[in-house]
């Protein structure tokens, strides 16, 4: 549009948003001379009632000359040359989209079946608009104008929208949904937004339709927007532009502000799109699977005469540009002399994409559906294949022509969406919306949650109802892996893992993020359905990834860099842990993992990031994932006489990072065996048994419940709960104290306290409660204690000892060591000479002791003494000499 058109009537014609349709009609008409040229002859089609004025060439050129703010601008918005995109919405200028059709006014069917209604007469059968149209032609200043076939009163629509722009405050919306109202919310919202748009020179305004709904006077406008977007959106554009120009004295350079409506009050499932939705504004969610390259869509062609250099512009007409065969200049008139000058033509960006249903909305047993979407101008390339999008657009159906040159069509319609707004529901890339509007307070903030499941209101009620049930905890834990018998505490632990604690950042203290994810390790005998539990977790967890330790390499878990075979570019590919960011990563055969692989888990499990420094790419990726792992004991069967670290081929630092560690032992226990057998027999008892117990939630519902809770509920520790947590922790620590001796076993560390907090939060989240209460803490501490009892019991003493997990040796053993050193020291002091032979010392030491002391233990003791500067060892092997450095009187230090 920036090129001043040399022939105004051409340039203008196509720019205005409804003209293609109308012009098409006029062309059809011109071939049918018996049609009257009165507006009544064009009763149909998209929304061009007011198109009548500019069908007369004279009038049209008039408008072409006038630019933006003209006398009657407010009353005739449709004459505005709008941008190409709007043109496309107003009426498809794509090829083979020449027909638009009427949106079923009530009396239409009757009109059709009435025999003998001639074309001319038929139009008279639509009395609703006749009068208005008439008046419109005869007197453009009359205010009541309806768009034909709709209920839209132009002035009313524009007036209410203008009022909305001027007066709407965010407070109005927030009051309805009980959101927190800030001071600035009481100021009119849109003037501020527009101001911001002016400074940033963005000319698209994202219009949150919730605002329209919240504002009393625009409720009707909202309905009309849904039903007649092709009419209302240009009206809105126009009003907005006018309003903007009134507010600020800027030269828009021929541009028009555009409204991008989004957040409709409900979104349509792609599967449910049907003919009734045609030409309505709808929101669909989906996954972008393919995108075409950007298509330069020619809007106006620029021709120059080779002979006289006369230039002319030709607009698109019914998807085609007709090359002038003759130089239009009266003096020249040479034939076939016009040639296209490419770089002076006007193009617009266009992109065609395919949107596929999101996996969660596909009904059972169906393959996903796809729909074509057309993106224009600055929406082009906003989304990339793989993005989850929420698209607002106009659903369009166009008949398919047998041949583009013929008017014969097939009875088949092609459907697509003309996109007006894209919202990414993908958590990681929120950039677009912000960049399109702006950042800052004026921007509608999007929920950051990764929308895995759409919970509509009825489901929400159901979920809330469920959360009120007193036996909720049992129902949920039963529903988790119903085929696995018993293991109730394990299931509960895993359930809490699925809900997860709250992630915290303490911005004030500048401390890093605290993880809320709960890690669980299952250790046990083969055949205790560990892997099955993992499979369930993987199924249920949002973003569950399942890997096997044996088959995973460090890079496979974290991230790796490859060279793209086509472009030779370095590409960072994320591994399982990064992919399960925000979910649960299930690792089977954890113990079979190589050490290198395992070491990357240290970072992931505490810091929740993956750092990559490789091939020129240095980065830290988020891996906010819970880990649910299972491992087999060394020698495949659990040795009751050994402690956990001795039974497991896992380094203690890694073990301590698991909040919960469960032992699943295959014990011979008559009662348990019998119950198991009974359970299994029941499975086979009757064909098609539905449950493995009563009152079980189906997997889908459980998943929905969990993702709802994770998205909506972020419990905070209550006062009482905090106190209770402290008590529990102290209690747990106290267990290490022993009345009889001064020795101290460590029964809990801060890691356990943190675990306890996380689990209480998860438990509160499960109840959808905003605060953590004492009951949550009690359950968390119970679960934790159960787990500790199982795994941190020192088999030698039968007492809980966290040192076992933390350092690999229990306190009991440590005490023995200390005793040994003490005794050795006493022995040394007892000698006359200050140097003693190694072998002699060892023999003497052994003699003195009740239990034989191994050479290694002896060596260890000597070494300890050496570091304490009590002795010094000289020599090698058997000839070693131990030299005493202190005397007996100095021994008390």
């Amino acid at each position, binding site marked *: 549009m920036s090129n001043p058109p040399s022939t105004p009537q051409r340039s203008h014609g196509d720019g205005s948003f409804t003209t293609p*349709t109308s012009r098409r*009609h006029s062309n*059809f008409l011109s071939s049918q001379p018996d049609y009257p040229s009165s507006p009544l002859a064009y009763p*149909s089609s998209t929304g061009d009632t007011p198109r009548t004025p500019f069908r007369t060439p004279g009038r049209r050129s008039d408008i072409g000359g006038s630019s933006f703010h003209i006398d009657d601008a407010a009353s005739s918005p449709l004459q505005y040359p709008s941008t190409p995109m709007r043109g496309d919405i107003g009426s498809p200028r*794509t*090829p*083979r989209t020449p027909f638009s*059709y*009427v949106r*079923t006014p009530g009396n*239409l069917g009757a009109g*059709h*079946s009435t025999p003998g209604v001639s074309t001319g007469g038929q139009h008279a059968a639509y009395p609703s608009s006749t009068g208005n149209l008439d008046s419109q032609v005869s007197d453009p200043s009359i205010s009541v104008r309806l768009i034909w076939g709709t209920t839209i009163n132009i002035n009313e629509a524009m007036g209410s929208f203008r009022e909305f722009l001027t007066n709407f405050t965010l407070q109005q919306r927030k009051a309805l949904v009980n959101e927190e109202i800030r001071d600035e919310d009481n100021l009119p919202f849109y003037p501020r937004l527009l101001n911001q748009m002016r400074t940033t020179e963005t000319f698209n305004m994202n219009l949150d339709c919730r605002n329209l709904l919240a504002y009393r006077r625009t409720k009707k406008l909202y309905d009309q927007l849904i039903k007649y977007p092709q009419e209302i959106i240009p009206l809105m554009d126009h009003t907005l532009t006018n309003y903007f120009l009134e507010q600020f004295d800027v030269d828009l350079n021929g541009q028009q502000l555009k409204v991008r409506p989004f957040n409709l009050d409900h979104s349509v499932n792609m599967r449910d799109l049907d003919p009734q939705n045609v030409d309505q504004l709808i929101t669909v969610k989906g996954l972008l*699977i*393919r995108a075409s390259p950007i*298509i330069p869509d020619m809007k106006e062609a620029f021709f120059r005469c080779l002979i006289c250099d006369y230039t002319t512009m030709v607009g698109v007409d019914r998807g085609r540009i007709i090359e002038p065969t003759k130089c239009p200049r009266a003096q020249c008139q040479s034939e076939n002399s016009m040639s296209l000058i490419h770089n002076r033509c006007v193009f617009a960006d266009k992109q065609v*994409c*395919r949107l*596929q249903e999101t996996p969660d909305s*596909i*009904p059972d*047993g*169906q*393959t996903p*559906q*796809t729909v*074509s979407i057309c993106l224009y101008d600055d929406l082009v390339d906003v989304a990339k294949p793989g993005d989850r999008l929420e698209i607002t657009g106009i659903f369009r*159906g166009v*008949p398919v022509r047998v041949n583009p040159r013929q*008017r*014969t*069509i*097939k*009875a*088949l*319609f*092609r*459907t*697509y969406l003309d996109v007006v707004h894209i919202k990414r529901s993908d958590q990681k890339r929120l950039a677009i919306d912000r960049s399109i509007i702006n950042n800052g307070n004026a921007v509608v903030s999007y929920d950051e949650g990764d929308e895995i499941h759409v919970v509509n209101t009825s489901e929400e009620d159901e979920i809330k109802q469920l959360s009120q049930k007193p036996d909720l905890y049992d129902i949920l834990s039963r529903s988790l*892996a119903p*085929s696995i018998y018993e293991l109730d505490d394990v299931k509960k632990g895993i359930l809490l893992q699925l809900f997860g604690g709250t992630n915290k950042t303490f911005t004030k203290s500048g401390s890093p993020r605290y993880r809320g994810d709960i890690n669980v390790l299952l250790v046990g005998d*083969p*055949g*205790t359905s560990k892997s099955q539990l993992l*499979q*369930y977790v993987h199924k249920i967890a949002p973003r569950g990834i399942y890997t096997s330790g044996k088959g995973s390499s460090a890079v496979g878990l974290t991230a790796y860099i490859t060279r793209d075979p086509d472009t030779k570019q370095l590409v960072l590919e994320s591994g399982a842990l990064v992919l399960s960011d925000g979910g649960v990563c299930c690792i089977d055969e954890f113990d079979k993992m190589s050490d290198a692989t395992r070491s990357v888990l240290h970072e992931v499990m505490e810091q929740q990031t993956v750092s990559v420094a490789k091939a020129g790419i240095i980065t830290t990726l988020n891996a906010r994932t819970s880990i649910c792992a299972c491992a087999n004991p060394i020698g495949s069967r659990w040795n009751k006489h050994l402690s956990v670290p001795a039974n497991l081929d896992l380094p203690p630092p890694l073990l301590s990072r698991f909040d919960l560690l469960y032992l699943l032992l295959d014990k*011979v226990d008559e009662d348990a*065996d*019998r119950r*198991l*057998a009974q359970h*299994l*027999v029941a*499975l*086979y*008892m009757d*064909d*098609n048994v*539905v449950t*493995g117990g009563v009152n079980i939630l189906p997997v889908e519902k459980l998943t929905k419940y969990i993702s709802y809770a994770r998205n909506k509920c972020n419990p905070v520790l209550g006062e009482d709960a905090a106190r209770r947590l402290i008590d529990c922790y102290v209690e747990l620590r106290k267990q290490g104290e022993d009345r009889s001796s001064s020795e101290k076993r460590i029964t809990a560390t801060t890691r356990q306290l943190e675990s306890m907090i996380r689990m209480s939060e998860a438990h509160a989240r499960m109840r959808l409660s905003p605060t953590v209460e004492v009951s949550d803490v009690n359950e968390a501490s119970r679960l934790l204690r159960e787990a500790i009892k199982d795994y941190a019991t020192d088999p030698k003493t039968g007492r809980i000892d966290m040192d076992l997990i933390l350092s690999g040796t229990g306190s009991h053993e440590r005490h023995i060591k200390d005793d040994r050193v003490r005794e050795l020291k006493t022995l040394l002091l007892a000698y006359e000479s200050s140097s003693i032979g190694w072998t002699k010392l060892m023999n003497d030491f052994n003699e003195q002791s009740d239990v034989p002391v191994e050479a290694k233990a002896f060596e260890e003791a000597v070494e300890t003494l050496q570091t304490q500067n009590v002795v010094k060892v000289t020599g090698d092997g058997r000839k070693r000499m131990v030299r005493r450095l202190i005397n007996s009187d100095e021994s008390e230090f």
Partner: protein
Amino acid sequence: MTQSTNIVANPLLVLENLFELSISKGDRPTEFDASKYLEDMLQSDLDLAKIPSLNLSNPATLPVDSLVRFRCMVQDSNLGPEIFLKLHEVFNATTGEKQLRSTKYCDADVSAIDQFNEGRIPNEWLDERSVLYCVSPPGESLWMKQQDHPSVDQQLENMTLGEVNYPESDSHATNKFPLPGIPHSDAVVKLYGADRNIEVGSRIEVIGILSKPSHSGASEDSIDDFDLPKASFPNTPVIHGIYCRKVNSIDILPVSKDEISAAKQQACDLRAQLLEYLGNAFGGDVMVAEYVLLQLLSRVTSKRGAFALGQFSVNVTEFPSETSAESAQNGNSIQSKFLSANSSTRHISSILQKLLPAFVELPLSLDVLNTTNFYPRSNDENLHAGVLQLLDGTTVLVDETMLKEGTLKEQGVKNMRALNKVIQQQVLGYAYPFHEFDLSTDIGFIVLSRAKSMFPCHCVVPLSQSAGLPLLASDDNGSLKVAENVLSSFRKYIHILKYSDYDIPQAVSEHIQERFVETRKQAASESLPLPTQDDLMLQLNLARLVALSFGSNELTQEFFDYTINLEKMRVSRLEPNSTTEPQK
């Protein structure tokens, strides 16, 4: 009578009359629906056999716009719903009247209609239809085809059946049949009305109007600049379904009540005969035959979470792998990619084919693994079929003996994973861009291998070393030639018992529990490996199949003990060669 012949020969005319009739009766033209009419016709005087079937004949030879039927598997349930014009107005020049015409059930070109010029099409004239891609049932046995089309002349059939294959110049359609290179027929089925939720992989029977391929030629696609190139099937015939019925696996073989009770009564006899018959294939090894028979009777009875109950997969080990010279010669053509070169395997499959309604042979050679697709995947929005996209109730004979050392490429690894998943969990992953989702299956597996199979089968049965292999020894003329009526009773036996109800009485249930507790105690005292949950589940599953195979709907203590003994025999076979661990 004339009406019924009319509707077969010229259904469009009949429908048009029907439409006019319904309008004159005052029905709303938008609600015109012919399915009821056809259903009534089928009930009364229209013989199903009179309708030509696409399963049998080449669609090219059938007249366009005639009534056809097609028994098929839904390969892809979403070629996208189509919005179409179901009504249009025709201007009658002579009378000057406008008439409504129905364009439902056809792909009519609506030429130069007045209202289009005016751009007036009421939304209510538009309707939506679902479009499915259907293929003839993969792996369907010859006798099934015969049984379904009794009218077809036997001799003629033997010649033409299985050659219903027309040239496929159409690149999109070649990947739509699960078993590449096997003759089949396919069609794009457009369904109107209530049949919207037909699941992919289900078996349906459609009666509808055959019309020519819908997208005629490339002219349309090439100039289509506002759509991404989408798969079209220019050579695949289109059926506008008037009547569509979902066929459950239990219904594929119609059996009467008498037949059911007869089969149950004679179950013991039939079982013995069948064992002998099957044993032929395995060199007279009755125990292997017994396990195979139990396999044939298994099906998925219930799905719970990650695993399916009821399906029972057998791995026959120690299977010979020599290829006979004869089959090596034949084994060159593309078609035989899915025919094992192992003559013993061929022998088994020829027997199973005679017994089972649907059977697929899957020789795992590196070539097959690396070059074919086992799982369906979407490629440019065209869902390509995978070998494992099969109808419920199909049995797959996996021949691992053909596998040699070599490199498994990416495709091969994915194939192995897919096969593993189906065997283990009875779900097949459909690969779509950016995500994969699982659909449940019910496919039986018999794996033949030399040593223990790579796949997690429920149980491993080694072939007895004494068995008379190579199995060809029992020649085709002898015991294999079983009279057709015997075969038919075998088929019914398998089908009826497979879908019989089953129950475990309380007393037996307690017996089983007691036994389990006892054996565990015993094992613990002798420090043997403890019997696990999986062992018990296998026993229970086998017990169910054993009871069924004897024609009983109830597990008795005898059947359970029989099962235990069977298991003992099997495990004892496993022991001598300690290399193979007992499979859980």
